[in-house]
């Protein structure tokens, strides 16, 4: 059971890291906005935090919501894996044809489910690495939502304004 606890702990750590990074970005952007208006650096940070609200409380709430999703994905994966394994053993160990068919269906559902969850997660990873490679100049193809100059839709609207 140690590995399961490790998985949940690691998952919680990465969720917390992502929440911290997201909040950090928001607070930095808000502080920069105040600095552009002529507020000192120190005061800008304090104002950004005040405008954000109770950071620690909001952080805890977001981690809790995200953790629920991670557990759900883990459960979903487990159900699909179980379906595949049971289907495999039904096919291997029980000689009756109709049991073979049930085994086939279970293997197919399990396999497709695992594949779908994997593709969904891999898609996000590919997009992230694609963004990073583009930013570092390793890839000339902009990631989805970015133009050739690396501008986001948000940038383009601001430029149009």
């Amino acid at each position, binding site marked *: 059971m140690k590995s399961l606890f490790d998985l949940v702990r690691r998952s919680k750590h990465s969720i917390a890291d992502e929440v911290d990074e997201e909040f950090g*970005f*928001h607070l930095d952007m808000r502080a920069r906005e105040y600095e552009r208006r002529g507020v000192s650096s120190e005061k800008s940070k304090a104002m950004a935090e005040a*405008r954000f609200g109770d950071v620690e409380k*909001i952080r805890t709430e977001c981690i809790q919501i*995200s953790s629920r*999703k991670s557990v759900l994905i883990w459960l979903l994966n487990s159900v699909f894996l179980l379906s595949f394994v049971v289907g495999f053993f039904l096919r291997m160990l029980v000689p009756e044809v109709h049991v073979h068919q049930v085994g086939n269906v279970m293997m197919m559902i399990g396999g497709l489910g695992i594949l779908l969850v994997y593709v969904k997660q891999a898609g*996000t990873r590919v997009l992230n690495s694609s963004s990073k490679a583009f*930013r570092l100049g390793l890839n000339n193809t902009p990631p989805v939502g970015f133009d050739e100059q690396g501008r986001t839709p*948000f940038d383009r609207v601001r430029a149009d304004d």
Partner: protein
Amino acid sequence: MRTTRTDLMQGTLELLILKTLSRKQMHGYGIAQQIHQAVDDLLKVEDGSLYPALYRMEERGWISSEWGTSENNRRAKFYKLTKVGHRQLAAQSNNWERVSRAVMRVLAAT
């Protein structure tokens, strides 16, 4: 003239986020900026209150998120509306119109 800032009614923030994301994908700060500009400081929306709402909406499948690069070349989490989110926006907009029409009728009658 000093304007009075009103606290946001429960569920309204979700509608504002859905509407904002229906135009384009955005990061949390961008959404906050758009909402602040749109409501012209009439409604009191704390920046941080946006995030639990965003996370809950993602959990419900109304929006999806992916990490990308922001306008200042920093890693940022971008949110976009899903098909379910578009349907939710239509439903919540209709509901909002119905409720506001009803309230206006009561106010006009009394």
